């Protein structure tokens, strides 16, 4: 009786004819619901019996639980299958534990579980701190003027054309976080024409927040005299109003900057790009700190204030906006998306073993 008989009577379409026939003859036995339930349980028993009889069960060799058309029965079968599996797993675990206890000291050491972080392939572009060539490269690149103390950062923040409320507030809050930042309305101007004007007025950075459907979703950060342009994707923006247990608004003191995990060559370039946004001398009086934390290619930005409770205890309160960035492309030279040369482009095809590549500004 393995193949459920497909004769349906006129009363109910789900159960084979045999059960419904019973219903007709014995109306006093109770409501239809009870009958249905009893039928269900009866079928369960039948199936159990069939399963327990190893040879006589006649499961066809290619049967799988997903071929049962009836949803309730399929669900039941699957639940049973999972319970069986779990039972076997528990039995195996118990056995192993017993063996381990029996062996005592001679037991083999416990295996380390596989995690995403464990399975990474070492990235060969990790920067060695004593590498001369990389040191020379960084000493003479476009940020050297800032790192040698010759220029002070001056940032121009703007958006794509006709920004809506959330983006406008985001830009205003960014301007409070970054010292010496000015927000300007875009007015539909072309960036390639804005850039020479910025250079003439001694701006060092141009930051353009792109908006889509009233939410900021992209950022173009262009280092001005002739520096690299980075294009990021912004996600999970939280404005000050939406933050819980936040402190009062940030003051005019220049914050301390923390850059975490920018360890590959590409990471170094991006890290320097962020570092050059802020003035080189942080005012520790203000107790403010901006953190760019890079983990698995996502850069998390947070802005905190230290609260010194006594000599040993320090707390932090979060102020200011928080957002996550993901680098989409790094282009050499100022903004020129058509004819510029790209130093790094995010290509999904390069991440075939995405989890198995090493940390932190993954190059291929």
């Amino acid at each position, binding site marked *: 009786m393995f193949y459920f008989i497909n004769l349906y009577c006129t009363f109910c379409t789900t159960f084979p004819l045999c059960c419904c026939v019973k219903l007709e003859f014995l109306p006093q036995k109770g409501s239809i619901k009870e009958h249905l339930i009893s039928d269900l349980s009866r079928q369960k028993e039948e199936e159990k019996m069939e399963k327990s009889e190893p040879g006589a069960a006649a499961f066809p060799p290619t049967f799988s639980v997903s071929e049962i058309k009836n949803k309730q029965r399929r669900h039941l079968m699957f639940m049973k299958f999972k319970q069986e599996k779990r039972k076997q797993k528990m039995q195996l675990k118990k056995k192993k534990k017993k063996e381990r206890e029996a062996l005592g000291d001679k037991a083999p050491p416990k295996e380390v579980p596989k995690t995403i972080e464990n399975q990474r392939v070492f990235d*060969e*572009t990790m920067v060695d701190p004593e*590498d001369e*060539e*990389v040191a*020379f*490269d960084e000493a*003479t690149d476009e940020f050297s003027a800032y790192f040698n103390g010759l220029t002070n950062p001056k940032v121009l923040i703007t958006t794509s054309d006709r920004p809506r409320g959330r983006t406008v507030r985001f830009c205003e809050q960014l301007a409070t976080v970054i010292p010496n930042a000015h927000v300007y309305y875009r007015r539909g101007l072309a960036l390639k024409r804005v850039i020479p004007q910025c250079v003439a007025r001694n701006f060092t950075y141009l930051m353009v927040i792109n908006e889509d459907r009233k939410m900021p979703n992209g950022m173009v950060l262009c280092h001005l005299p002739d520096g690299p342009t980075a294009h990021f994707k912004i996600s999970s923006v939280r404005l000050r109003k939406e933050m819980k247990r936040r402190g009062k608004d940030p003051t005019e003191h220049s914050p301390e900057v923390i850059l975490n995990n920018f360890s590959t*060559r590409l990471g170094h370039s991006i890290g320097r790009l962020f570092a050059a946004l802020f003035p080189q001398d942080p005012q520790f009086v203000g107790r403010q700190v901006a953190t760019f934390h890079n983990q698995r290619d996502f850069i998390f930005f947070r802005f905190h204030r230290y609260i010194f409770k006594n000599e040993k205890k320090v707390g932090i309160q979060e102020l200011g906006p928080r957002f996550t960035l993901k680098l989409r492309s790094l282009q*050499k030279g100022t903004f020129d998306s*058509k*004819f*510029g*040369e*790209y*130093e*790094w*482009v995010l*290509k999904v*095809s*390069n991440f075939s073993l995405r989890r198995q590549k090493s940390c932190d500004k993954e*190059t*291929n």
Partner: protein
Amino acid sequence: MADRSRLCTVWLGSETGILKGVSVTRKQAFNFCNTSHLSRDQEVRALCWGDPAESEVLVGSVDGTVKTFSTEKGQFTDSRRCGGPADGGFTGLALCGAALVTCGECGTLRVWREDSSEPALELSAGNNVCRMRQSPVHRDRVATGGKDNGLKIWDLQKPDAPLFTAKNLRDDWLDLRRPHWVRDLAFIPDSDKVVTCTGYHQVHVFDPSSPQRRPVLEVEYGEYPLTALSLPAGGSTVVVGNTHGQIALLDLRKGVVRGCLKGLAGGVRGLQCHPTLPVVASCGLDRFLRIHSLEDRTLLHKVYLKSRLNCVLLASRDLEDGRGAAGEGGSQEVKEEEEGGEDEVWDTMERVEEKPKRKTTEEEEEELQKKKKSKKKRKKGQD
């Protein structure tokens, strides 16, 4: 130093001024630097072989000096001043007999003799020259191209006027002049033709022997400027790379993209195909040297070199070749022995003849005709 440089089969020039040699078999890269003090003025812009035996590499830098590096000795032997930094970086270096031909970005093409510090010949190839190359067949002929500066083929014996000036493409459907930007070019080996790749993602083939001065063939690839070009040994394909790191194999007979080489993440600055093996080396702004096989388009080798790379030069000898040490001579002997052993094994095995599964075409035709005849007969019978 000397043995290290002898091992290297791939030479690259970087933006920091360091000449890098890579030994593919050992997966090692060696830096060769002229001065102990690096500077950005020494940025290498052009590389070429100093002699047909490939024992010397000529390195052209941004400040106008051409240095000779000897692979046998492993050090820089000579340095010449060929123009100044005002010329812009070198866009091409070539050897014509004993004379050195250089071209800068400002367009002045100069021929230098061995002894003098003044150019023997100087001509202007227009403004903004992006590339100059020498024809492998006629050593006197040189081609230049640049931004808004079409392809021009010059004969150095007659420097007054170019042998061939390419005409720009026809005006587009709005009657506007088409912009024109030759980024890289190459001479096709067995003929007079020249292939160019442009900043407007087109690849053109010009034929100077035909009366047509416009391109004979035009192929478009991608949406980004094509920065590098190389011709593999076959002759009917071309490998191009663009600023996004996409490298493609294009077929020149049909004008179709054959396939793409994956892996590069930054703009391609230098591409070179090996003269005999179906292998192409690419280098670019992402600081890696990659060697791909052209037949199945897989990545064979990838080496991280810490600076951005500008140009690449392949030695004609086998890439996997590692010369020099006696140990390697010993390994070659071992290989020969193994090959001899294999022959014996094959001889002792029985020969199994294949059954002819497929019939020849003639037989197939006969069968078809027979079938047709039988069908006709059947039809008649039914009628």
